[in-house]
Every structure is written in structure tokens, then in C-alpha cells.
């Protein structure tokens, strides 16, 4: 399998108010094209920070990161922005939709900056929200909002889809619906999907699972037979 992304001894520390925290203490990994990866870890393990580094949302303090053999750790802010624009789709735990744009408009927002976007209507249909396109986020359920967020991320046609606790704010039924969409994007659209979660059950969907503990990569396990979302429960 071809390597999409490689991280070498990645470290990250940052300051919150008057406190300095070392979040990643030296992580090395490889991500392959078309993989479904789950990053597991407790709160404070560094999984969100790792995801942010992979997604170009922040730079590592030390270490190397390569994307399609290009050194991401050396590029400037402008190039990082282009990387996020063209290669990455991000899904957040709290959806982060624009509250005063409709579902359609939130997705359209991403289309306006994409080089090679997909069709908004097609994507809305894929996520099952073709009848809700004119609704504002306040008029949608949590699951619907998350599906809009996924649609917004995927309409850019990115190479890699990063999801930060996508089911964290949802009940099990809705969560499964969301996971089904993500699996579909991975299997049918061949997107590399990386999910971070503290929910061990979700890891059963993955091709590989990265276990993070105290800012270090504790273990990497291959799942021989990834389950479908309907087969998992929590």
C-alpha cells in the first residue's frame, strides 16, 4: 500500500494562559491511501492535537511530517492553508456550522474555495438531507447537523477526511447513522478517513487503530475484519 502521510518523532507543546503543556512527546506513524483509521485515547492523551497536526491546523513544535512525500513541517502559513483547502476535510465534534447559513449554504461555503468540488445536491442526497437543504442549523437535530458538517467537509473532494469525535454529541442511533456515512465515503469514494474518539467500540470499524497514551503512540493494531456501524453498539 502506498504511503499517504508519514510522521517522524512529532512533538507538540503549547501555552494556555500562564501554563506550558507538552502534549505530544514524540510520535511516529504512517497512513496509507484509502485507510480507515481510528485514533483512540483518553482525554489529554494528545489525540486531538495529533489530528490537528495531520490536518494542518497547527504545526508540530518538533519532528517531521510528510504528505505525499512533501514536508508539511517546513511549509509556511500560506501553503498550509492551501493544503487544508485542497487536501483535507474536517468534521468537528460540535459540528461548527455557520448558524445563520442554511444546510445548503453551509455546504456551498466550502464549494466556493474548492478546486474540484463535488455537487452540493449529490452530497446532500448521499448524507440523506436532500429535503432539509433550506433549514438553518437551529432547525436540525444533532445528527442532521453532523451530517451537514460531513457533507461540507466532503464536498471539497479532499484526499483525507479528519473527524474529531464525530459521534461525541450524539445518541447511539444517530451516531451509527453518521458512522455509516463515513464508512461509505471510505469504501465507495476511497477517501482516507481518520476518526479520533475515546469510544473503544468505534475502533472496531477501522482498518487500523492507533492507541495514544500520555502523548505517545502506545500501540498500533490492524483490524482484520472491520465491522459495519450497524454491528457495533455502545
Amino acid at each position, binding site marked *: 500500500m502506498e504511503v499517504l502521510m508519514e510522521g517522524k518523532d512529532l512533538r507538540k507543546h503549547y501555552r*494556555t494562559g500562564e501554563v506550558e503543556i507538552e502534549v505530544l512527546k514524540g510520535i511516529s506513524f504512517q497512513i496509507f491511501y484509502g485507510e480507515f483509521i481510528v485514533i483512540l485515547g483518553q482525554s489529554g492523551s494528545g489525540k486531538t492535537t495529533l489530528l490537528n497536526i495531520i490536518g494542518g*491546523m*497547527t504545526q508540530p513544535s518538533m519532528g517531521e511530517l510528510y504528505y505525499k512525500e512533501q514536508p508539511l513541517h517546513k511549509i509556511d502559513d*500560506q501553503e498550509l492553508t492551501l*493544503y487544508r*483547502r485542497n487536501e483535507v476535510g474536517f468534521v468537528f465534534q460540535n459540528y461548527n456550522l*455557520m448558524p445563520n447559513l442554511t444546510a445548503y*449554504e453551509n455546504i456551498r461555503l466550502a464549494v*466556493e474555495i474548492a478546486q474540484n468540488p463535488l455537487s452540493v445536491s449529490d452530497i446532500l442526497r448521499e448524507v440523506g438531507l436532500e429535503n432539509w437543504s433550506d433549514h438553518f442549523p437551529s432547525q436540525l437535530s444533532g445528527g442532521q447537523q453532523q451530517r451537514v458538517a460531513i457533507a461540507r467537509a466532503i464536498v471539497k473532494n479532499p484526499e483525507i477526511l479528519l473527524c474529531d469525535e464525530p459521534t461525541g454529541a450524539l445518541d447511539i442511533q444517530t451516531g451509527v447513522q453518521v458512522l455509516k456515512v463515513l464508512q461509505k465515503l471510505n469504501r465507495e469514494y476511497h477517501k482516507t478517513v481518520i476518526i479520533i474518539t475515546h469510544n473503544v467500540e468505534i475502533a472496531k470499524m477501522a482498518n487500523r487503530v492507533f492507541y495514544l497514551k500520555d502523548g505517545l503512540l502506545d500501540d498500533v493494531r490492524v483490524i482484520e475484519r472491520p465491522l459495519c456501524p450497524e454491528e457495533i453498539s455502545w
Partner: protein
Amino acid sequence: MVMLRRKTWRDIKENFGVYLACIMVIALGLLLYTSMSIAVESMDKAQQDFYAETNFADGFITVTGYPENKVNSLTFLPGIDQAAGRIVKEVRVIDQQKDSNRYLKMVTLNEANASQINQIQLIDGQLPKENQPEILVDPKFLAANHLSLGDSIDLSIDGNQVSLYITGTAQSPEFIYIMRNAQDLYPSAEEFGIAYISLSTLKALVKEKGQVNDIVFTLEDGVSFDSVKDNLQAELKPYGFRSIVPRKDQTSNSILTSEIKQIRTMTKTLPVVFLGVAAIILYTMLRRLIEQQRVSIGTLKAFGFTDREIVLHYLTYPVVIGTTGGLLGGLSGVALSFPLTAMYKEFFALPGLKSEFSLKYLFISIALAFVFSVLSGVKGSLDILRLEPAEAMRPPAPGTARKTLIEKFTWFWKTLSSQAQMGIRDVFRTPTRSLFNVIGIAVVYSLMTVSWSMQNMTDLLTVVQLEQVQTYDVKLQLTDPSPTGAVKFAVAHELGVSKVEPVLEVPASLRNGWLKKDVALMGLSDESTLYNILDKNGRRLEVSDHGVLISEHLAKSLNVKAGDVIYVESPLRRETLSQKGENLLVTGVVPQYVGLNAFMKDTELQRFLRQGEISTAMLIQMDSAEIGSMKSKYQNASNVSSIESLKDTGAKIQKMMESFGFTVWLLAILGGFCGFALIYNASIISLSERKRELASLRVLGMTPREVLRVITSEQWTLYAFGILLGIPMAYGLSMSMAQSMSNDMYSLPADLPPMALLGAAAGTAFSVLVAQSRAYYKIKSLPYVEILATRD
């Protein structure tokens, strides 16, 4: 970026009240700028055009009598281009029905073969014929006295009653602002007007045969007035030379030019105040918006929106607000310029004065608003650049947890409720935002203080002048300087007269180095009580036996103080070869609110003039019941130019002061609106930041009024600091306004009485209260359950 623009519109709609207040503040500032700029440009153009068309004179001379046939020879003097002689005579209008003082200044028209200087512009009717009893009058006099073309008017000319027919109306560049003399302050079209008459007609009616008593001249290109003045004086001295005045000091031109200058100053300062307040509002609003939308900003960055795209998106807010305000202000300013110009036309009879739609000022208005708005938004928008996407989506680090300064006063701090402590703490924890709000309140407060104090200034001009300085009942002005004893004796024996004080008023030039001022030098009798000179504290000052007392405005113009020596000349002084003028000691500087005078003891002034014991007027204290008959007796006297009661003078001053009243109210209302907009914006920001805290207090069981105290305590703290800063600001503003509005006719004192400071504090507090009422309504309708249920 269609979706981002849509987001902008919807964000603006959600906070429409605050944005609207900001738009209104910008619009107000630019309405003032645009309307005044168009009006002043129109006035300036009309003035320049009219002067050019009518060949307005460069200099004005009065003499006792100069041979008519010699006037042209003045052009042989170096620097003089053209010269024209006229007879100028002030005559009384005889009115059988009314007991009124109405006068006309008769000015002879240029002869066909003479230089056409100060040509008149015929407005209606036709020119008066030679040797016919016909005149033109100025249109305002005609209208104010309900006269028509063809009417006859009875005049007393050199003791004779004459009937003249009005053949038309005309306007001269010399009388755009018509005042009887420099002390008159305010035009009174009903009581004083200008009449134009053929030279041959007037010659037959006056004692000046073959002579002119008024000469106007123009200068050759590049020649200055000062370079010709001495030669002209020398030439005219044998003919009773009285005064020579350059164009810039000619009364009408001086007042018009001064008004234009004042308006120009206002167009530069007032809009800046409003735009400054709007910039403060926009700055705080945008910073708040960016803080609130931190997560959205992070999301946009995460999606690959560039910093430039995001910064431009957030700059759209101030640009939209600014451009809307600029457009509104510009358009309404253009509309207002029409009635404003019409108002100026009431005062200044400038032909060709009219307002026009001005694209230029509309564009400047929009551009100014745009620039101010963008500048106010730049800082907040640039903060976006510092945020990494990941950092943006993390909640901001909690603020510093140190005790604020005011909490150190524990005895005071403990007396405050928890809500008050929350509110006050926040003032000190957001120092930049608080500082901007304090500056804004200080500006509003100082605007209001100055508008209140202008009322006090106008009271000073009227009350002090009429009750403490000028305490006579009647002033009898003589045509020429006359022997004091004889006139005083005659007047003192009139019925009802209890006191008579002679006064000597002569034109004089005061010089300090290259600084020069032409003033009326006033000689007062020993221990004068009918005209009092007061010091700063209102105490009566005695004029010293030697030297000269000068007014504050004059001292400033000449850059002199008590103890300095100034050089004094007067056309009425009998000169010797070696001594044209004399050095005199400045014995003191005194406040003077009306007129521009220097004061001497009458005996000292008589010594200076070397004309013996002469006077030019009598100040009379008498029984008010006898004033009417005194007037009737002396009005027709050939050696009396006017007789005026203090009541008449008071009415004129009062009328002038009424025009200030409008400015006072306008400033106060505009200041109040700015204050409201500022505080309203601050309270909305406070509310949105504190939603969770306030919701928690509601859940705890506090009433909306109790919860409101968190907001009100913050605002009253800002208010208190704003007032403290506003007091010195108000003094500064008052001084600069008094300076810019003072001129040779009147000086406005820069006093700020306690009532002005208190009144403005009350006015600003009212703006705060109105804004708080809106905040109360919002707290009352706060969906606290929903707020506490949603995560940040």
C-alpha cells in the same frame, strides 16, 4: 464569496440596533460636513464672483471734503490703479406714525465718466435718473419696511425734509452684510438700509458742494495696501482725512470672510468628533464579533479560507456600516445645504448665492466614512491573522485572575453587591475596550458641556454688557467731534436728565512691531459710571490718567501685555512733522465681550489728539419717560448723527444671541445621541459576553432588575471615568470654540460655569439611562434555560 457575504448580512441583521445607531452617528457627522461644506463653498464662490463682477475696492477712505475734480489725480500716486469719489451720508427716515429710529446710508452712484469701482448690481426696477428725486434701496430694507417700487420715502437730509421715490433695488459688494457701524453687532433691515442716488441729486441736497467725503480705490497688481496708505494719508490730510481701511477690514467683507472661515473650521472639526465616536463603536463591536466568532473563524481557516479572505470578510462589516452612513449623511447633507444656504442668504445679501447638488462632497462623504470605518476595523481584523485554526477553535484562555485596582480598597469593595463587583471588575479586566468607551463618553460629555456653556456665554454678552458695562439710558452720537462743554451743558439741561458723561471715540491704529490693529479708541471721563470697564471678576476698574487699557482680544492680536508699549496713530490727531503718532504704555488688559476697544482717560486722549476738549458722544442717564421727547428733539439736529436708547441696543444684542440658541440645542441633541449610541453598543456587547453569567443569576432566582445591576455597575463606572476625563476635555473644547468664534465684533469667554458641567453630566446620564432601559428589556427576555443548556 457569496456565502460569506450572505453571512455578513445576516450577522448585521441580528445586531441591527447597534449597527443602526452607528450608521446614524456617522450619517450625522457627515450630514454636518456635507451641508456646511457645500454652503461655504457656495458662499465663497458667490463672494469672489460678485467682487470680481463689481470691481470691489481695495481701500476705503473717509474725509471731511475732497474736491470732486481732484479724485482722479489720486491715480497718479504710486500703486493706485483706479479711484472714485462719492458722497456718503447717513440720513434719518422721517416716520410720522412710528416712534422709531430708521436710517439710510445714502451712497452716490459712479458717474458715467468716472472709475467704475464698487459697481452696484440692479436687482429690480431701474436706475435713478440724474437730478431727479429718485433712489434705489437695498432689497432687505424694502421688504422689512413693506415698501414697493414707486413708493416715496421722507428723509431728513442736513436738516431738510426731502421726499424721494424708490425706482428699484440694488446690491453693492460693499454692503453684503449691512450694519450701521462696527458696534451694531446685528443687521436690522427694518432700521438701517442702504440707498443709492445719483451724485447730482444728492449734491443739490447737501452742504458738500463740489466735494466728496468718501473715496474708494483699487490697487495695481502686486501692490500692497500698506505701501500706498501713507501717501494717501499725506495727500488727504489737508482735506480732513478721517480714516483709511483696507478691503480686509471693511465691515461687510470682514464679517463675511470671518463667517466663511468659521464655517470652514467647523466642517473640519465637528465631523471628526462624530466619526471618532463611530470609530470607537465600530472598533469595539468588531473586536467583540471576532471574539464571539472565534470558532467560526477557526472553522473557516480549517477549511482552507486564507487569512486575506477571512480578514476581508470581517472588514466588510465596518465597510458596509461606514458606506451606508456616508451615503446617508452625504445625501441628507446635500439636501440640508439648500435650506442652510437659504438661511445664510437671509444674513448675507450675496447675489448668486445658491446651493447646488454636489457629487464631489457626496463622494468625499462616502470616502471619509469608508476610511474611518476601515481604520476602526483593521486592528480587530488583523487579530484574526494571529490565530492558528486549532487555537481559534479552542476556547480562549481564561482572563487574568489578579485583583483589580479598585478591589484593593476593601472597605469600599465590601459595600458593593456581587452584581456590582462583577460589573466593575470587568471594566478593569478589559482595559483597552474600557478606555475606548471612557474616551467616547468624555467626548460626548465635553460636547454637551460646551453647548450648555454657550448659553452662559450668550448671557454674559447680553446681561453683562447691558447691565454692568453700558449703564446709560441714552447715547447721543455727534456727527463730528465737538467742544465738550457746550454740548454737555445743552444736554444736561434737558428734561429728565440726571447725569451726562462726555465720551470721545476716535478711530486709531495700534501697532506692536509688525502687528497692527485698527480699533475705536475710547476716552472716558473721570470716574465714569455710565460706561464701566470691568476686570475678570466683574469689579469696576478706573482708567488710569496716562497710558491705555486694552481688551483681551486686542492684546492677543497685538501680542502685548500690561507694561508693554504700543505705537498709536489716529487720523484725528493733529500731527507734527516729527510725531505722527505716539508710544503709549499698556496699563492693563481687560475682558471685553462686545466691540473691540482701547480705553484712555478722556483728558489723556484729548492731549494725544491735540484738538482741545472735544467729545464725539454724550452718555445720558435720564428718566425713561422723557427718552421719547429727547429723541424727537435731537433726531433732526444737524450735529447729531444718532440718538439711541440702551433698550434699542439691548434688542439688537438679544436678536444676535437668539441665533446661538439653535446651535446650542443642536450640539446638545447630537451629543446626547452619540452618548446613547456608545453606551447602547457597550451594553449589548456586555450582555452578549455575559449571557451565561446572567442566565445563571436568573436561574439562581434574581429578578431581571437585580441582574441588570451587573451591566449598570459597569456602565456607571465607565460613565464616572468618562466624566472625569471629560472635564479637562470640555475646558479645552470650550477654549478652542471661544477662540474660533470670537472676532472683532464680540469675544466669547471660555468660561465653564458649574451649571454647564452639571447639566452636561445630567444629559450624559440620561443617555446612559435610555441605553440601560434597552438592556433591561433584553435581560427580561433572556432564554436562560436554553443558554445554559448549550455548550460554548
